[in-house]
């Protein structure tokens, strides 16, 4: 009887495996990539097929390129895990990205879904879902936050409470009410946020490097990785980045004179904004924060692994050609498109910003966590490259982050850290008021919970 049961179970699992159809073939592979199917783990190699329902896992420094039966491609980066929840060429497919990053080129022409406003594929993470409508994009998650960058086409992006089993109709409804990301833009769904960030233009350097690195090659030659994110700003103190920025008007004229055909050849030719519109463009590039609606500054970096957004620091120049800021002293981009924080700063994959701070009292260096920066551009504040220096000078540095949040005494910090207005107001106003009503009224106007370090 026992033998019969074993045989029966083997047969059943075989049937079950046979019932699963091949959906993608391995076209390129680097390092160690496993596929888990019906509880069985197999090491993948070039030319292998993966079936519907499989879970694919890449090890550190590993990569796999899958080509699906509809000819769309999906490249999985290192330390990633992805489940093919449902794959069909008649309806939208559903992929769950458990962790890591995926670069996908989904070509709508290959899909047999006629309605262009419907998603051809959904990619779910722990807290977000993307509806793909024919596109080249990258999505990453650390299991907490989700970041997505679009290179071509269009994706719609929104929050989900959990990646559990949702019908494609439901997913379509969710993404329809989300944000629409256009090429060159990014959006981040932070676990603490109510909705994804309003799409903003990614730093052009990072965008281009990410776009070129479709195989997640972490060992790309340094190439043009000469830009130093900690170089001195070209903005002299007192001026704004917008004031010193230069349009490409002269360049356009020069190019037009050299090759007359080019001038009118293409709508994408160098065409700087008019003076009147440049101020408005600069304003729109700065981003905004309006309740749950947060738009990071154009030209921000994204720490892809964690979804942390690093806005351009003070002293950044607006590039009217792209309407993005050229970040100053905010870190740099490595050849593979990864964000590299400035010296003495580290961003962990779970999104913590750690700063090495010299403890002048003990002569040691300790690591201190600082809150995430405001993602809106500001001419004031401390650039990320200077945070360590500022904290060293702070008398509260030795007391840890809580002391910083409470509002340090240091003048430089006072300028940039926003302590609760409550104590000041209540003290000041109570100094002169007699009744409790007045106290309540005065406190009311400035009461705020936001105790933040304004790192820019």
């Amino acid at each position, binding site marked *: 009887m026992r033998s019969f049961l074993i045989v029966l179970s083997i047969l059943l699992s075989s049937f079950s495996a046979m019932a699963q159809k091949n959906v993608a073939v391995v076209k390129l592979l680097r390092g160690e990539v496993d596929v888990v199917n019906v509880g069985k783990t197999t090491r993948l190699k070039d030319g292998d097929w993966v079936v519907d329902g499989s879970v694919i896992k890449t090890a550190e420094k590993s990569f796999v390129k899958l080509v699906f039966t509809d000819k769309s491609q999906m490249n999985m980066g290192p330390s990633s895990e992805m489940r093919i929840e449902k794959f069909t060429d008649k309806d939208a497919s559903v992929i769950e990205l458990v962790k890591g990053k995926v670069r996908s080129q989904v070509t709508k022409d290959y899909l047999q879904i006629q309605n262009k406003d419907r998603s051809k594929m959904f990619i779910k993470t722990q807290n977000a879902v993307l509806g793909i409508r024919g596109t080249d994009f990258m999505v990453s998650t650390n299991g907490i936050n989700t970041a997505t960058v679009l290179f071509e086409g269009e994706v719609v992006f929104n929050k989900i409470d959990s990646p559990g089993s949702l019908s494609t109709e439901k997913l379509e409804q969710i993404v329809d009410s989300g944000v629409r990301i256009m090429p060159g833009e990014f959006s981040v769904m932070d676990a603490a946020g109510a909705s994804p960030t309003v799409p903003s233009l990614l730093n052009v350097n990072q965008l281009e490097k990410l776009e070129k690195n479709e195989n997640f090659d972490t060992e790309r030659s340094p190439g043009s990785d000469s830009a130093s994110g900690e170089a001195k700003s070209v903005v002299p103190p*007192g001026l704004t980045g917008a004031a*010193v920025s230069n349009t490409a008007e002269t360049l356009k004229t020069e190019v037009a004179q050299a090759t007359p055909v080019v001038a009118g050849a293409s709508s994408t030719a160098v065409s700087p904004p008019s003076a009147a519109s440049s101020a408005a463009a600069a304003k729109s590039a700065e981003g905004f924060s309006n309740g749950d609606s947060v738009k990071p500054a154009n030209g921000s970096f994204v720490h892809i692994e964690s979804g942390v957004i690093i806005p351009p620091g003070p002293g950044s120049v607006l590039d009217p050609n*792209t309407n993005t800021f050229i970040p100053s002293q905010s870190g740099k981009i490595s050849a593979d498109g990864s964000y590299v924080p400035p010296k003495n700063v580290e961003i962990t994959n779970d999104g913590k910003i750690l700063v090495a701070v010299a403890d002048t009292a003990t002569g040691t260096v300790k690591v201190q966590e600082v809150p995430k920066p405001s993602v809106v551009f500001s001419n004031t504040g401390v650039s990320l490259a200077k945070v360590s220096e500022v904290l060293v000078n702070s008398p509260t540095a030795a007391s840890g982050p809580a002391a910083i949040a409470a509002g340090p005494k240091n003048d430089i910090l006072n300028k940039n850290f926003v302590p609760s207005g409550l104590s000041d107001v209540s003290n000041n106003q109570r100094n002169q008021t007699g009744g409790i009503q007045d*106290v309540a009224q005065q406190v009311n106007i400035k009461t705020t919970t936001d105790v933040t370090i304004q790192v820019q």
Partner: protein
Amino acid sequence: MIKLLAWMLMFTISLCVLAQDAQVAVPQAKDDGLFKKASTLFAQGKYLSTIEELKTLEVRLLNDSTSSRSNLGLIYYWKGMTHNRLQEYTDAIANFDKALGHDYSPLDLNYEYGQALFAADKLEEARLQFKESLNKKFKRGVSLYYIAFVSKELGDKKKALTFFQAVDKLEKEEAAEVQQAAEMQIADIYLEQVESGKDAFKGVEQYVIPQYERAFKVDEESPLAPQIKEKIVNLQRKYELILFNLRNGRPTLNPPYFLRVSQEISDDSNVTFSPTETTISKSKQSSMYSKTDVIGRYTLYLKNFMSFAPELRMNNTYYFNRVPEIYRNDNRLFAPALRTAYEHTLWEKQASTLFDYEYSYAQRDVNAKEKLEFSSRSNTFMLGERFNFFASGETILRIRKRAFTSYASASNSNTTSFVLEQIKSIATNTLIIYFSYDQTRVKNEAFDTNAMTLRTDLIMARVKDWFTPSVGLSLTSTDPINNRAARGQELLINPNTRITKTFGKSFRVNLKYEYQKNKSEDTANFAFKKQLYGMELEYLF
């Protein structure tokens, strides 16, 4: 045959000519598209690819005997521009240098070159490029500012000052972007000068601060304005030009004035009439009402230990339901006060001894003649102590004495109060606890009361940066000591809530709701219940 040969010859010659034309036309067509790809890539912000493309073109042109020098110059200039946008300043400098080496110097080359040199800390060379840029009249204001700033960095303060001052001589449009910063830099230089000499105090007061103020006034809303303001404040603090902290460390008020104007429109479900505070008449009718309130206060400091704050409050209330039971509540209040505080320390913490005098004069339509007449006046003296006993917030203890004169002399009264207020911060919320014990002795002794009030207000943190909610509950237990048999122990229950939304720096809107229920055995005269809800718009100067 000769004809045929002649035709063939002509045909061959024509073909040769055409072929030559074609040979000429081919490179022309090729050149037309020479920069198309680079232009497209640059316009798309694909600067790395632009540089790759320009490098390819550079090699091609270097190996092409027909290429002109100016095209190579353009490529170097373009590369320099692109490297600048990638913050690759060393590469930018090298390419701008090459462009100039090819006698190629378009309008903005020196400016961009100067910026690259500035970022690379090659200040002398940067200054030369910005001078060239200025000569070309390219971004004159900014170029001039760079020259001045670099001169300052190089220690040439005199030259820096001259260039910063020259900004003022530019056309308004050219100077606009840099004028405020230039004025601030001038003040910075003044400051360095006066601080390096004797009598810095005088120099700061006479030259430096006025110069910063001039800079501030250029644009009080600019991103730079707060920095300038801060410099002024820091100097005032450093040279003790203004009192910032009292001797116990308590900050002085800045600004020293406080002025608030508010307009409230509310609905009272049961308008009650109690001008003497000894009786209550219920109208059992509802009415909307309008209340306009103005309060202003100015604080003066005597050295660093004493403050005097004259205050004036005025308000006017008007009921829209024009029946006598209601409109007799129309009233007007005029209430000046003088508040003083003596600053000291208690248990080594900030403390203040408070002494206040308040006068109030009220008019009311007491005779329901749609005419405001004298209703009451009062003189109140208060002696109190504010101290920090608990770490979570300040405590205030007060003794208050009030003499109340009514239009009905039988209602004249004297009240002695003992008050305790405690502020407590709970995480991001603030809890305010108020307790008072009031002994009121009325000319008509039947109305004598002893009352206890306990009130708590919880002011919560701003919700999603949108509004600030608060809730409160007040309980007043009144013992009509000479009329217990008729009234019994009375209890006024008064829960309330408020939502406040702030607009800009000065406007805020309050939505208010409160419920009042007074329990009394004398249901005809003292028991009542009512609801009040309304909206208040405030402006703070």
